[in-house]
């Protein structure tokens, strides 16, 4: 009986009486890529696929479509999936099943995205490194860690570098926690797009073009992004020139942006530390482009800038009229930049006591920057505010214990 027939027989028996969860170990070396993909296909719910130490070279993308599987390595610098010579597929690893745990391994130099999980509810990424080792380049893949169309997402203790779009990108999803990650040398460090109930806390975003982005875009199956908390992050030195391919929305991000909120309903920015983001520590704007989608609201609504620590910043902005602006504001722009566009008086930008900023005093989404009338931000500070608690279900964090 050859191996596949044996496997087939095992599968048949498994269908009759489920076997106990197993651990399949994949060591680097001859045929490792095929052994790994075979294990990913033949895994049963509850199984663990363990990568040994070393480097596995892949010519094709990997994929996992079995619920409840854990893929784990020996550490983000020890178990490496190397896609430098990838010949096919749009990403390094694609996950399309629920309750999957990915931990303690690295994906290097994928041709497209790093790890994509689509329609994969309850997914955990922990201790993952995705890196384009040649540094920031437009030819790098778009996203490092890329969960999309999913409910229940935890991305933690991971590291992404070199993404030509976003290092960690969560799109069209709900109930999300992105915590304790390090993102650097990406166009966007972390991007939460068309998603709800996201907690982004204790991350380090440095040396990106923009640190933390919260976007809501038109024309997508899932819209209405909001209820996002950015809390306790270090957002510093985001000064890498934008290297995104021109057609992408993040190509419009100005070098030196700490936090960028575009459209969205409900974003709380508090207890973060900002330093040396030369355009703006925090930028809150309406969607810029024309659109034709009656379901879409282009305004940034209910955005609250609470207490944050602001260091040097706004001193070398990538903005038209930079010299005049710097002169007007005494050599550095205040930490918060608002376009001034509000849907109504009740939902415009709000700030805590002592938060300084400036506004473009625009009034309509899509209005030309030429019509801007920059001036200091004159808002009545909030004494207190309420914001829903958000984030991934507790069981995702518990899975890592």
């Amino acid at each position, binding site marked *: 009986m050859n191996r596949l027939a044996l496997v087939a*027989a095992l599968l048949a028996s498994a269908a009759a009486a489920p076997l106990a969860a197993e651990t399949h170990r994949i060591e680097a070396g001859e045929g490792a890529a095929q052994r790994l993909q075979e294990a990913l296909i033949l895994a049963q719910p509850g199984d663990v696929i363990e990568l040994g130490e070393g480097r596995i070279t892949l010519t094709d993308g990997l994929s996992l479509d079995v619920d409840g599987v854990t893929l784990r390595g020996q550490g983000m610098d020890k178990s490496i999936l190397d896609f430098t010579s990838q010949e096919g*597929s749009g990403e390094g690893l694609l996950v399309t099943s629920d309750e999957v745990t990915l931990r303690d391994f690295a994906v290097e130099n994928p041709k497209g995205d790093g790890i994509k999980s*689509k329609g994969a509810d309850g997914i955990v990424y922990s201790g993952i490194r995705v890196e384009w080792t040649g540094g920031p380049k437009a030819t790098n*893949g778009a996203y490092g860690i890329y969960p999309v169309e999913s409910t229940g997402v935890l991305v933690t203790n991971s590291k992404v570098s070199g993404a030509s779009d976003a290092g960690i990108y969560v799109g069209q999803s709900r109930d999300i926690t992105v915590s304790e990650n390090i993102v650097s040398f990406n166009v966007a460090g972390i991007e939460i797009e068309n998603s709800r109930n996201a907690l982004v806390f204790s991350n380090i975003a440095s040396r990106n073009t923009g640190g933390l982005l919260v976007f809501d875009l038109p024309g997508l199956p899932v819209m209405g992004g909001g209820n996002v908390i950015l809390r306790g992050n270090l957002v510093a030195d985001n000064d890498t020139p934008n290297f995104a391919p021109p*057609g992408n929305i993040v190509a419009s991000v100005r070098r030196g942006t700490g936090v960028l909120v575009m459209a969205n309903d409900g974003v709380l920015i508090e207890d973060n530390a900002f330093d040396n983001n030369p355009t703006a520590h925090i930028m809150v704007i309406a969607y810029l482009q024309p659109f*034709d989608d009656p379901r879409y609201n282009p305004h940034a609504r209910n955005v609250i800038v609470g207490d944050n620590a602001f260091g040097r910043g706004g001193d070398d902005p990538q903005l038209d009229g930079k010299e005049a602006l710097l002169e007007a504001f005494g050599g550095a722009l205040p930490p918060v930049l608002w376009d001034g566009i509000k849907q109504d008086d009740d939902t415009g930008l709000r700030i805590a006591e002592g938060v300084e900023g400036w506004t473009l005093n625009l009034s309509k989404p899509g209005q030309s920057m030429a019509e801007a009338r920059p001036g200091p931000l004159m808002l009545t500070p909030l004494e207190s505010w309420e914001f829903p608690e958000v984030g991934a279900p507790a069981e995702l964090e518990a899975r890592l214990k």
Partner: protein
Amino acid sequence: MKRGLGLLALASATLGAALAHGAVPEAQPVNDAAVTGAAFPAKLSDFGFFRDGARQVPGARVYPYALNTPLWSDGAEKLRFIYLPEGMQLTADGEGLLKFPVGAAILKTFAFGEGDARRLIETRVLLHRADGWVALPYRWNAEQTEATLALTGGRIDLVTPAGEAISYAIPNKNQCKTCHSSSNKVVPIGPKARNLSVRWLGDMLKAGKLDRLPPGAATMPVWAGYTAKSPAEPFARAYLDVNCAHCHQPGGGASNSGLDLRWEQSDPHAFGIGKRPVAAGRGAGEYEFSILAGHPDQSILLYRMNSAEPGIAMPELGKASVDRQGVAVVRRWIAEMK
């Protein structure tokens, strides 16, 4: 007696070619247990779909068919078959996908080379089991005597009919599902009434293998009949439907892009005109819109069709070279847009 004559005629091209090469073994019944059981049979011959696998001579109740506009796969010749167990038939569902009874199977063999030089590379099998469809790839051996299950896919160096040397990828089992997926379930893609000939559907009806002739049959153009005088739009839209829409539709693998390339999609923004990319990354090149009307060379869709580089190329799977004719037709369609 008249029933089935048409089907015989349909099969005759294949049979004739095979008969010319010598005797064809007796048709044995298909192994229904292999089709409907829980296992993944190790060999293609375990199913008994073919009287003569090497020559692709179908067995009993295995019906060859063709599509008006086929999926392009590096120029591979494709031999398509449907297996229906005894006493079962297909059910028409308007212009859409024919409904298959449990126990049915769909087969597609990929071959390169002509005449005696033809080599079978792989046969992809879709099995309709009680709990849904299962997709399995089988790889032909060098002797062309057997195809064995290739769960993890594989790569083969070959030269396409266009003369390009490529590393041809046999998909792994999961990659089969990447295309054959709707709302995370495996589904057939090809045999939609709109993309099947009225003659074939009529023959199946007469043979009792189809419940009725569906309205909207054969509305998609016959790709092979394209000439410079053909209207570009129906050919381009048919091409995009067949080559792209299995992912680019609601519930498909690329649903999050919002780009919907199905034949029936009538909203120009949804099928790409003036639509900005979402997650295209470097696949967007230097361009801002999926389709910029009148400007094929500034349209992301054409840019990606026209690339064979992973990370840029579309489709992401099943393509290692560029379909020059497909690009030409879509280019003409975009160029002619006002």
